[in-house]
């Protein structure tokens, strides 16, 4: 009774499905990233699984020639299973590498945050709190502990210990810095430094024209209008570079400031309001 529909399915499979399937498994065994990983690895077990997969793939090809779709499907399944087993073996290495990488990254982060903690505690001369210093010794101890696990290859434990150290250090840093505002003030050691800054500021505005406003500038009417201040800006920039060339930075800065103003004009024409 169920014979008819099943035959239809099998016939279908032998015509298109299976052909594609063989190609897919072939890629999986020979060309996939995991297959290459197996080839590169020095893991004989994984290689053996790959060989086994190739053998089953050959069986599938032979079965296809005989038109035995069922045997093709069976052999392909065995091939897939074998290659997956192989991948699992080298996959472990990938996971391990990732864990090592995460550990080392986190350790690096922790070192920098610990240094910040030490610096801030010392700067905080008023209101010294002995617990703050304790956090630092605690963190250092935990980091050593984590490293010992890491050296023994116990990566999960190493990661956990490091994470705990991070959480307590974070808590302490938040306590030290919460509610503060720090200012990174702008001052230039030399006129030349200020000139370099102005060059950057000029670049920034030019970049806006060439990225965000690219489409607008392609509009023929608006583009023409924008060209007027932009040409002037270009001219002034060249002039500034010449002034800087003869070490007249004072004048070069002024000229660049003017140049940037013209670019800002063009940016505003295109509909982005930026102060300046």
């Amino acid at each position: 009774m169920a014979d008819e529909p099943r035959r239809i399915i099998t016939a279908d499979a032998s015509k298109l499905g299976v052909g594609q399937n063989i190609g897919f498994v072939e890629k999986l065994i020979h060309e996939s990233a995991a297959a290459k990983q197996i080839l590169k690895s020095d893991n004989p077990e994984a290689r053996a699984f790959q060989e086994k997969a190739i053998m089953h793939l050959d069986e599938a090809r032979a079965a296809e020639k005989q038109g035995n779709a069922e045997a093709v499907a069976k052999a392909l399944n065995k091939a897939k299973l074998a290659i997956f087993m192989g991948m699992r073996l080298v996959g472990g290495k990938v996971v391990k590498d990732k864990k090592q990488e995460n550990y080392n990254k986190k350790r690096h982060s922790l070192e920098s945050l610990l240094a910040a903690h030490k610096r801030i505690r010392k700067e905080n001369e008023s209101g010294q709190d002995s617990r703050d210093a304790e956090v630092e010794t605690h963190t250092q101890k935990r980091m050593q502990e984590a490293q010992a696990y890491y050296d023994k290859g116990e990566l999960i434990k190493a990661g956990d210990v490091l994470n705990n150290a991070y959480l307590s250090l974070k808590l302490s840093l938040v306590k030290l810095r919460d509610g503060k505002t720090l200012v990174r003030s702008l001052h230039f050691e030399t006129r030349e430094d200020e000139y370099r800054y102005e060059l950057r500021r000029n670049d920034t505005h030019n970049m806006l024209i060439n990225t965000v406003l690219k489409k607008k500038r392609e509009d023929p009417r608006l583009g023409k209008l924008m060209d007027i201040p932009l040409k002037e800006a270009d001219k002034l920039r060249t002039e500034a570079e010449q002034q800087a060339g003869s070490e007249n930075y004072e004048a070069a800065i002024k000229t660049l400031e003017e140049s940037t103003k013209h670019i800002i004009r063009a940016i505003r024409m295109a509909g982005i309001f930026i102060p300046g």
Partner: protein
Amino acid sequence: MNKRQITITSLTLFAVALTALMGVGVVNAAGNPNPFNRLFVPPKERDTALKNDKIHDPSVPGLKLLQQPKEAFAPLPGSIGGNYINWVQALNKGLIKPHFDHLDASKEALSMDLVIVMEVKGSMPNVAFPHKEHTVWLECTNCHDSIFKPLKGANPMSMAEIMLGQKCGVCHGSVAFPVTECRRCHTESKKTAKK
């Protein structure tokens, strides 16, 4: 006001994209301007349909079962760039409740209210970098110290670098609001900046 709470898959995507960026963003960014340009799409050309987002595989039939961003984002406060949502407000208003730790739903963010004001020459307002708005989503280790050394002034940066996907641009323009929203970073008018 709509207080519906939404589980948005894109928040998970956010985390995935972020980890991907941590690895490659800095290296690839300078040579390739496309990634940073990604969120500069003008509203008219924007297509949020999952099948066209280049993240989901359009040939997977199950895609139809997923909620479309247009529907999911509808009740959230809007913005002028990126994916046109103001995620800071969405979070502050309690309209979304992202898990801080994808492995542990009970874990809450421990945020830190530390502001670093960065003075800018000219009439452009100063930049105020708020730790608070970042640490509600991110761990300190996301930035320190692979992107920024935790030391005031130790990380010189320019707008050009940011637009090319470095420094703040590692995230802004890819997984956070793009650089076109000048006023969200350049918030501190010259007079109010405290010394």
